């Protein structure tokens, strides 16, 4: 249980990731409530994306604990974590370029027996039956994201914004319980961005999906998230509801700077910044 009286779906404690002498993630701890939309913000280089990479198994952590729905996940492989229901997207989209959009979608569906070669050969009927279900839900999702006309195009021909939408739609095909989105709005026009936010709200309301997303657009963060976690220099420096975080002195110092008069921070050689 967290402070809101809701169940915690994700919790990190003292997660550390070092690259040589640099502690990119330096003991980050926070939790994500089930059914919440949590924003992860922080200046460039704060360790947000590295944190994502660690807790989704793409990087090996150097220390700390992370649990998804009560299961320890550090040390597990990315595909295992994804199968548990904690699915991520990437900051730089990873469209499967030489595959049609519909195949990108259908690939992501879980529980396809035909993904085992033996089943595909010896139990083709069950594989085909699942294929039909999967195609249907893929087409429904493409409709939601306005991608239906592109279903049979190679994903590599999509624009940057369309790729972002495809990646989100594809992640949803896995039927996740927690989605980690790395800058989902970047490069999307405002109309589509609003659509994407609406869809996040709807998924949470209808299917109880939780979200943890990295975002730089403060308007989006303040108006569309229930909780904000702020990272700076690898640590979590604040966490709370948007209005609390907005007024937090450490956050203003580290990140928001400019919305309040802030004393100039010393730079590397100790001299005040101009």
């Amino acid at each position: 249980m967290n402070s809101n009286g809701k169940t915690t779906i994700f919790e990190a404690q003292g997660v550390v990731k070092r690259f040589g002498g640099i502690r990119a993630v330096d003991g980050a701890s926070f939790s994500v409530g089930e059914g919440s939309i949590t924003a992860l913000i922080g200046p460039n280089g704060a360790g947000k994306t590295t944190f994502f990479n660690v807790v989704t198994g793409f990087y090996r952590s150097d220390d700390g604990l992370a649990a998804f729905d009560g299961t320890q996940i550090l040390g597990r492989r990315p595909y295992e974590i994804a199968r548990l229901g904690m699915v991520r997207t990437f900051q730089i989209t990873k469209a499967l370029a030489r595959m049609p959009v519909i195949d990108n979608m259908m690939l992501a569906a879980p529980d396809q027996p035909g993904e085992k070669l033996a089943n595909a050969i010896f139990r083709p009927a069950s594989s085909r039956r699942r294929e039909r279900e999967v195609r249907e839900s893929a087409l429904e999702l493409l409709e939601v994201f306005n991608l239906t006309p592109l279903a049979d195009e190679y994903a590599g021909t999509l624009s940057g914004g369309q790729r972002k939408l495809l990646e989100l739609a594809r992640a949803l095909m896995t039927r996740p319980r927690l989605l980690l989105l790395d800058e989902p709005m970047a490069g999307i026009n405002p109309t589509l961005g609003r659509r994407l936010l609406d869809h996040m709200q709807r998924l949470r309301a209808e299917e109880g999906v939780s979200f943890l997303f990295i975002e730089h657009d403060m308007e989006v963060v303040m108006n569309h998230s229930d909780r904000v976690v702020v990272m700076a220099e690898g640590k979590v420096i604040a966490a709370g509801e948007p209005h609390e975080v907005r007024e937090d002195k450490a956050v203003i110092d580290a990140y928001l700077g400019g919305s309040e008069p802030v004393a100039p921070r010393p730079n590397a050689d100790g001299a005040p910044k101009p």
Partner: protein
Amino acid sequence: MHLPLAISLNFLTDTGFWTGVLILAGVYALVALGLQLNMGFTGIVNFGAAGFMAVGAYSMAILTLKTGLSFWASLPISMLITIGFGFLLGLPSLRLRADYLAIVTIAASEVVRLVAQNARDLTGGNQGLFCEGAKCFDDQWRDVSDKIVGWLQDLGWSNPDQLVPLLLVVWLTVIVVTLGLVFAQRTPWGRVLRAVREDEDAARALGKNAFSYKLQSLSISAAIGAIAGWFLALDLATLHPLDYEPIVTFYAYAILVLGGLANYWGVLAGAVIFWVIVEGTRFLELGISEVRLAAIRFAIAGLILILIMVFRPQGLFGKRDEMVLGE
């Protein structure tokens, strides 16, 4: 006197010669099918194909000659040995990036060849491996082959070449393997392979065990390589380390590129065209001595291949869209 740059046409009717060329084309089609699975559909840069052939061929011949096993029993066992070899090779190396994987696989294939050259008691070394006393590794195949020749004569082919049965069996195998691969590629299993080719991390983030799929791809390619190795041994009626040099893998890659990536049928066309060009250049009449022609014909074959690629960079059956998007 011949006109320079003319081609005499009487070679076209030399069935013995063309039987040999087409057997070679079939053997290389098999090798290139395995590479197509790896390179074209999984994104694995496997340069160890000749090693798979050598392991398959040598373990088949050694089992037949040195143990009590029959030729037929040694086939499935040697295939399992080759699959095991591919599996063990892939286990540490498939975590490597493409260029490093290429180096490791080509090195592994050279290690196999050098072992074959030096483990003389087992492989015959540079003397080759064919018979022990009165027993030859291909005795049982020859019995079958003679039977097929008899059938062909019954069907009215008065005097088929000795190698025609092998030709038929090789190409029947090529067709069956191609159909199997085409089928597998259309299943959800094949879709995961393509996803791994496109972006391994994306596949993993969607819950796919990319490493396992790469290992499966390499193991299947090893099994196909073993079959190609058997056929090469039966064609040459001997096993010699020099027949498994890396050039074999390079030719198979040339066939792959010529036929086009991510298309199994293209491999078949590529193999036939490649060997017809390479062997057909023997019959060029350039008004020069045979020795000089032998030296120059590979250059001419290379030139023809380059010209085909200039006009069809995606290969004969490759998709131009996919080539462009892959860059």
